[in-house]
């Protein structure tokens, strides 16, 4: 045993040393966010570099799995949290986030911030948004659905992959979308749509992976998804279907923690977040729409995207109150044989 133990302990020690604490700096702004924001393809590295140039401080990103985990972590840490900023909640989480009473009013100038659906809040500042949309493969689908109703009533042999509202935010988005359009008739709509649903994946990546592999010709994603394919892959193959009823929106927001010891710096960061410096970067890194006019025009591809004529957005309180009941309703409708 000892023969195994010694090299093992050495390896464990090496592992522990490998992740030793970072050197403390004078002024550090701690931003809690989600992983895809800080990944090397995401906006994180650029935002950090640009802000550090102007603030004379250091930005420290702490990135958890996703927006939901972000809120959970804040709840668990309570007032002792080191976070100055929480970046990456979406509007559905705002009600729960407010209930923690960990956040302070942002107190920044949001005159230039404009998101469809007229979302405005004095605590949670939107920094990007995207409308949910059905993305289809033009090589397979010649007549894309023109409305949610078309999607629900259409040919069941043309399949769609959707996400699960129990485990993912796009899944919850579709649930709210259908609810917004169909109201009390949502269960009947789901019972019909169910026949077109090839599968319900735990998250966006699984569904989108199946879509780009050609397994399924439609997927629930964002109106901005085609921009990625047009800009990075130079292909028009994948397009969003515009729905006549309108599209449900996902708005990503950032907030200032009440317990922040760098409140001025944090405010400065929030203001920076909605300034052209960040807004220029968001579209081609986070593949979401900017909330204020960028300084340089967006790539051409963005002008070709679907611009929803109507935006659905339910109040965060309403979502928080009804989410479980609506998910149960969905489960029942989707599990019927």
């Amino acid at each position, binding site marked *: *045993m000892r023969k*195994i*133990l010694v*090299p*093992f302990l050495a*390896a*464990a020690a*090496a*592992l*522990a040393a490998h*992740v*030793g*604490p970072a050197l403390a700096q004078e002024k550090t702004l701690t931003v809690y966010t989600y*992983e*895809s924001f800080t*990944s*090397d*393809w*995401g906006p994180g590295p650029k935002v950090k570099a640009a802000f550090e140039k102007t603030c004379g401080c250091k930005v420290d990103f*702490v*990135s*958890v*799995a996703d927006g*939901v*985990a972000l809120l*959970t*972590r804040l*709840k*668990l*840490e309570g007032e002792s949290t080191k976070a100055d900023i929480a970046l990456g909640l979406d509007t559905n989480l705002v009600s729960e986030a407010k209930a923690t009473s960990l956040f302070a009013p942002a107190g920044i100038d949001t005159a230039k911030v404009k998101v469809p659906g007229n979302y405005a809040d004095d605590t949670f500042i939107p920094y990007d948004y995207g409308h949910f949309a059905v993305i289809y493969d033009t090589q397979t689908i010649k007549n894309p659905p023109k409305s949610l109703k078309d999607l629900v009533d259409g040919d069941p042999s043309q399949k769609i992959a959707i996400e*699960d509202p*129990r*485990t993912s935010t796009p899944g919850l988005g579709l649930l709210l979308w259908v609810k917004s359009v169909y109201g009390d008739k949502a269960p009947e709509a789901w019972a019909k749509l*169910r026949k077109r*649903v*090839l*599968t*319900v*994946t*735990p998250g*966006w*990546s*699984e569904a*989108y*992976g*199946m879509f780009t*592999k*050609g*397994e*399924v010709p439609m997927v629930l994603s964002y109106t901005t*998804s085609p921009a*990625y394919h047009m800009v*990075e892959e130079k292909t028009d193959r994948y397009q969003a279907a515009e729905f006549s009823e309108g599209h449900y929106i996902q708005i990503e927001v950032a907030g200032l923690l009440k317990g922040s010891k760098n409140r001025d710096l944090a405010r400065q960061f929030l203001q920076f977040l909605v300034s052209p410096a960040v807004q220029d970067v968001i579209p081609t890194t986070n*593949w979401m729409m900017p909330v204020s006019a960028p300084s340089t025009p967006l790539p051409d591809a963005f002008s070709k995207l679907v611009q929803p004529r109507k935006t659905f957005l339910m109040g965060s309180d309403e979502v928080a109150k009804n989410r*479980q009941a609506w998910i149960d309703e*969905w*489960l029942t409708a*989707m*599990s019927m*044989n």
Partner: protein
Amino acid sequence: MLTARQARQAIGGGVLALTLVSLFVAIAVIALLSWDTGRAGSRLMTAYTWRILFFTIWQAFLSTLLSVGLAVPVALALARRPSFPGRIWIIRLMAVPMGLPVLIGALGLIGIWGRQGMANQSLLAIGVSQPVSIYGLSGILIAHVFFNLPLATRLLLASLERLPAEYWLIASSLGMKPFSVFRLIEWPALRRVAPGVAGLVYMLCATSFTLVLVLGGGPAATTLEVAIYQSLHFDFDPPRAIALAFLQIGVTTILLALISVFPAPEAWGLTAGRLPRRFDGSGFGSKAWDAIVIAIAAVFLVLPLASIAISGLHADLIRLASSDIFVKAAATSLSIALVSGLVAVGFSILVINARSAISQAASAGAGLKSLSAALAGLSSLVLLVPPVVLGTGWFLALRPMGDISRFAPILVALVNALMALPFAMRVIAPAMEAHRIRTGRLSASLGLAGWSRIRHIDFPVLIRPMLMALSFAMALSLGDLGAVALFGSSDFTTLPWLVYNRLASYRSNDADGLALILGIICLALTMIGTAGRERERPNA
């Protein structure tokens, strides 16, 4: 044949392992339960819970039946043909599915069995116009067989390969027919390990999450693991998550107890330890049968892997493999895999030695017997503790210790070690048991003990199962995403994390390439697990 001191040491080691593992799980659970959610508890046993409980058991039962049932002929055929070109590679490839991130495996399977997959394209070619959909229970079963049949085959094959050479000599001189060989030699050997293998596969399938959702076709296919994830991740309701986890463990304990009721057959006979050589199966019929069985299994295994490899080849592999982030992720993943593999193997040895010492003790009281049962139970049931429970619980427990993110790698390594423990146990236990029976008395009478016994008696025989266990555990750890969703450690990047991260930011091409590289690393690892095999082959 242990001296009293040796027995005490062995049992003490078992107690130590039991304590550490229990503490590791208990601390997480207690930390979670002591968190006040400030809301009234929801009812646990609703119609929904009953339904997913039933579905969890049903799909896991069918998956186990198929995986282990189909693994039997494959293992028999591979055992009867100990040397044919490519055999070693089939065996090595069998460890690859374990090391793949589940989503990648699922996409590989879809590439073959999906609506646009190879199988449907072939059907289309012969005139079937509508694609046959695998989504639903059939998809889940195909996926579970893909991931678990190779594992079951290797464990069963190992037990067949341990049969003393004398058996085959006698079988041949008695002129036994294939059926007699099966009934008298092969079946008793398989029966000894089959319950353990089935239990392991059952637990893996019962806790399946991504595969069940992706291939299940809708929420009618939901396992308890999904509900646990939902209540901890999305709803943050720890009491409910823990209650669901206990429900899962409770039900599985009952099922495993039922399996273990089957009496274990006689243990191994003595052998002179000569290298086994098969004299049977030289007829045309048995040759053809073996060829067909092995070919079908190999094709079933290789096609999805090939589909993953082909997608991966479209990526810019050189750029991916030489990027800083990849090198860093690979180093992190490999160190975590090594640590968790060594912990898993080390703990397995402690547990096995303790149980063996207890079983040899002439006057083992009820206390020792229940210790032995606890060791056996713990080392398998630990697989059922959802990683999200451990991750969140340990986040709470470690929070007072300051910067939480630096604990992430150690925690992932330990969680992986725990997951790998049941695998390592099932690889090592039968080998050590057989070895002890064959050499125990002899070593005792020669007075061999300590280092010289390890060097001369144990090492040459046990190194192979140990390496196989290590490579299994490492592969398992390599493919695991890690349960550190809350830890917020941007420096901590593993290979599967990198794959998911690329997928999450539309870079599916890069993800495919990384998956291929990950597969190759796993394959390289399994070469450790099969090291020394060629050398030991008789020159038949």
